[in-house]
């Protein structure tokens, strides 16, 4: 699986996505957002009277020549845009065909690559029961291979504690950035609470809900013992048509609630069906302005 996860075709698709991203998103934003990577421009903001301790290099000598008083120039603080990708690595992600975790890793890699190419830094941080150590503050496209290696080695295991993970994240990352959360978001209430924490710390958020075809329309009927992939708890059920109908209604309302919550707080949201190619999905996200600030 790991060999096939990021093959040559995948890298080609990354290049393609970068081009698409430049045309759709970053080309338009160049004039709107300052970036060290776009040149060393220093934007003047205001004047104020000189006070001892100020850097004498900031004194505007032409004003002093005209007015005979010392004024220093004030400049706009330069902004960096950091991309943080929080990747759910709980056992529930290792499910379905095509596999949700593989799909999530491809999405994470693709988004990170776009971030490396167009933003100040890109980070991928895994989380399950707690926030893991990922690859953080990577800069430049050349770091993409390091990132791919990391993602390839990443296992999907354990239960999810989204709340604890985000709590750790906000203590670790103080500076607001663009945070993309890739998860199946089971346990919605806890997930909302976790997203709230990120929101409170001024992070720009985008949530990607991963779902496999099986979860959208389970192809089962009859006598089943359903076993939870995370907790190994089980439930004996006779799966009937009416039960499947209720299941699909419940899953639809679950996704709708997450979407509604996201819209309410201006959070980007997309449902990623693992049957949809990851590059198509990324293009869709870009079209929706998913990576804009």
């Amino acid at each position, binding site marked *: 699986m790991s060999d096939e996860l990021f093959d040559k075709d995948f890298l080609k698709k990354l290049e393609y996505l970068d081009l698409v991203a430049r045309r759709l998103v970053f080309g338009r934003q160049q004039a709107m957002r300052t970036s060290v990577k776009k040149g060393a421009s220093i934007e003047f903001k205001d004047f104020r009277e000189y006070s001892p301790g100020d850097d004498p290099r900031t004194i505007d000598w032409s004003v002093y020549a005209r007015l005979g008083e010392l004024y220093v120039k004030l400049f706009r603080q330069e902004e960096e845009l950091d991309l943080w990708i929080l990747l759910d690595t709980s056992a*529930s992600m290792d499910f379905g065909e095509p596999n949700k975790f593989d799909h999530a890793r491809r999405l994470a890699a693709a988004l990170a690559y776009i971030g490396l190419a167009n933003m100040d830094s890109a980070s991928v941080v895994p989380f399950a029961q707690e926030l893991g150590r990922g690859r953080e503050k990577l800069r430049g496209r050349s770091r993409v291979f390091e990132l791919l290696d990391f993602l390839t080695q990443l296992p999907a295991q354990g239960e999810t504690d989204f709340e604890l993970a985000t709590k750790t994240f906000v203590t670790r990352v103080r500076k607001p950035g663009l945070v993309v959360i890739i998860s199946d978001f089971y346990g919605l209430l806890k997930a909302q609470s976790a997203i709230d924490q990120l929101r409170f710390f001024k992070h720009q958020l985008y949530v990607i809900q991963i779902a496999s075809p099986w979860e959208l329309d389970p192809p089962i009927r009859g006598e089943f013992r359903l*076993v939870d992939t995370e907790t190994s708890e089980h439930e004996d059920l006779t799966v*009937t*048509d009416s039960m499947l109908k209720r299941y699909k209604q419940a899953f639809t309302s679950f996704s709708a609630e997450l979407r509604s919550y996201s819209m309410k707080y201006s959070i980007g949201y997309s449902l990623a069906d693992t049957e949809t190619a990851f590059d198509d999905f990324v293009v869709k996200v870009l079209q929706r302005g998913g990576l804009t600030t």
Partner: protein
Amino acid sequence: MTLLAPWALWLFSIGGAVVALYLLKIRRHRQTVPAIEFWRALVSQAPVRSLFQRLKRLFSLLLWLIIVALLVLATGNPIFSFGKIKPRSIAIILDNSASMQTIESEAENKTRLQLAKEAINELTSRRPVADEWMLIEAGREPQVHIAWTRDRRAVRDAADSIKTYEGSSDLAASKELAQQLLVGKERPCIVIISDGANDEIIKLSTEDKTVVYWPIGNSDDNLGITHLSVRTHRQKSAHYAFIRVLNASGNEIETRIVFELDGSTAAVEPFTIAANSEWEKTVILNAPQGGVLRASIDRDDSLMLDNEAFAILDPIRSASTLLITPPEDAYFFEQALVAMEPLVDLDSSSTISPDEFDQTAATIQDFDLMIFNNCLPKQIPPTGKFIFVNGWPAELPITVSGIIDSPELFVSQRDHPLTRYLTLRAVMLAQAQRVELTQRSTVLAQTTEADPLIFLIDQPDRQALCLAFDVLDSDLPFRNAFPMLMRNAVAFLVTEQPNWIRSEYHIGEIIQPVRPLPRDVSEITIARLSADEISQQTIPTNGESFTFSSTLERGPLRISIGNEFAYAVVNLTSTKETAIGPVVAIAQPGDNLVLTGRLLGMVPWLALTVIALALITLEWLTYHFRWTE
């Protein structure tokens, strides 16, 4: 209940396999899910049915066990009967005669033969024990279709292969054959499956307790021609067709008969016939040229085979005769010939003395018939027809061994055309010649000691009727028998020629020549003359005879013998076959044969299979219902 195939009980051992398969069927499949809580939430919404589900599972398993039991029992071919039943040797006689072609409108328009085959199916499947079977077809002649076997299916297959026979069957002969084949068998039984054959069956089944009559058919709606014959009326130069029709139904019927001569309508006779009675009519047909007559009833009924019959109309022609007799003896012969007109053409006939004959024998023109009375000609023509009275040439195969005084005369062949309407009782003869016939001859009248007195010498090129006594030395000329004999002789030897065969045969009857064939004829051709086509068949002769047995179809035949043609017809014309009214059995065959009871109106194995299929459907529905509740 008894199982005809008890080995099937071993199949109960698959009951365990069924339970195992069922448990496999209801075994829960393990399925991992990313979030069990989702499903738990759904379960909590649904009403609790665990007990109901469990009961349904038990019900389903119970159904499957019942289904297996039913199928195993069905495979065992169970039968239901009371008491101890012993196997029997059963000879089935299937009547496939013409009346079995009757269409039974109350039985989905099936023929009686089809119903009889169904009866064989029923009989062979409902006997409660393993019997030994044999099947005899009572058609043209009794024929064993399958010899003793315990394979019921083979008996049914053999019955299915039996085809229609459009003639009359001989049930008595079939029964006799069955009895011969049942000798030595334990508990013999003969089952005759027939429509009754005009009460013949009642006699057969009552005189022998081993015979069981299985009646077939209920319909009696039939009108059929039971007789059609034609005679020639020479004075009127016409043919008289005599027809007899039988109404087998219980209703009066008004219809008509159409007579067609060589395909053209010659006469139409409307008639009304009372229920269960006969109607007869003689119809005059002015057709001196002759032809093939077809009479048909213009009405559809249950049996169409007997609605038509055929007859041959011979061309009407007169005979030229030459009477060779001493002048003083000519009177009675001449009077007899004159009385025959127009059978005899008097203008072309003449009378001469023996001396004149001897003088002019070489120059005598062809006569159809030469009559020699009390004379011994030096020579006679090599071919021709002759009557020799009290003397014949030496070349005939007759040896005179003495004289018989005052012999008594008896007709020995009553059905011969030469003796038709002839009564010779108490004819007074002064004396006769004692003769011995050295070649095959037909003796028509003889003494009490079997000395031939009137006989027919039938040679390939010559036919000669010989009287071994002096007619004028008896009282025969004063009796009607004399002109009658002379008339028969002229008709038989001349005007009704060529009488190689009879003019009518019944279906299945074998055709053989009534007189020897010419020696130079090695094969004959028989053509079937029908309205649609003429089919021919050539068969070799056997010496001076031939045998033609393909008389299974109705219709006219033309037989070519050398340069001559002979015509005949093949008819059904059977009162026995036309009277299709049901003959009720004295006892129910099912009682006699101890047939198994029925289940749901079917034989048990079929009923059990149907029930099992119904239960399979019920089980599937209940299981499916559980999934889709």
